């Protein structure tokens, strides 16, 4: 993938943390920062928008709607199961 270069300034605290991570993981600094930025939800959203897949609510990528329905359905079953077992409860409803 072609790359674009830009320079950033950071606080010493952040710089030292990134350097420590770079040493721990044995990654190039650029690769590490790219990975960290890509994992941030705001950046993830921006990338999606850029790709034109999920610019706004109601324009999700194909299949995501079904995924969300399935996840909610699973969460609901798990919650109800734990509710029946007395592990979770809404106390004010």
């Amino acid at each position: 993938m072609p790359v674009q270069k830009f320079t950033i300034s950071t606080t010493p605290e952040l710089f030292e943390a990134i350097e420590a991570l770079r040493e721990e993981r044995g990654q190039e600094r650029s690769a590490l920062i790219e990975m960290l930025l890509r994992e941030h939800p705001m950046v993830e959203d921006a990338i999606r928008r850029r790709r034109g897949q999920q610019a706004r609510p109601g324009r999700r990528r194909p299949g995501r709607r079904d995924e969300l329905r399935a996840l909610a359905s699973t969460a609901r079953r798990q919650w109800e199961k734990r509710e029946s077992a007395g592990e979770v409860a809404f106390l004010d409803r």
Partner: protein
Amino acid sequence: MTGDGAEAFRAVLDEHLAGLSAPERRGTFLGLLQHHLPEGSEPILVGGALVEILTEGMYVTGDIDLLGDAREIGDLLEAAGFEKNGRLFVEEDLGLAVEIVGRHLDPERRSERIRWQGYTLHVLSIEDLIVDRLCAAKFWDSQTDHEQAQLLYGTHHERLDVARLRARAKEERVEDLLDGLEVP
């Protein structure tokens, strides 16, 4: 909170959080924190960690956003070994990041209590949590928040106070997004 109290708090954190998954660790931490604060001053969980708990980990967050007395909570956390950085308190060994995002709920929002794995947690009401997410989706163009609202609505639609949810959505001008949420 005395030094002994903070030491005891740290000891129960070490004992109870070991071996837990990240979502379980966050919920258990909150339960233990509330237990160690005076009655009536329990912090209220808001934000992504609450979404995580209410959706059984279908959405995963990184930190714990609380409303409460920053000095009281902060003193306890610092005494228990958390490192303070502005409003954020981090304990790397425990894998916890706690942010005190405010002191009180706005008057139009409500809190409620949930029982969770033996703890009583004080949390933002589901209706207000959904509306918060819809506001972020609409006014900040956050797809992630829209998905969280969908997950919350899909998971708990049967227990929602629909009239209040709609009224809050209308107040915050997100009725259009509320109408788009689906039941699985």
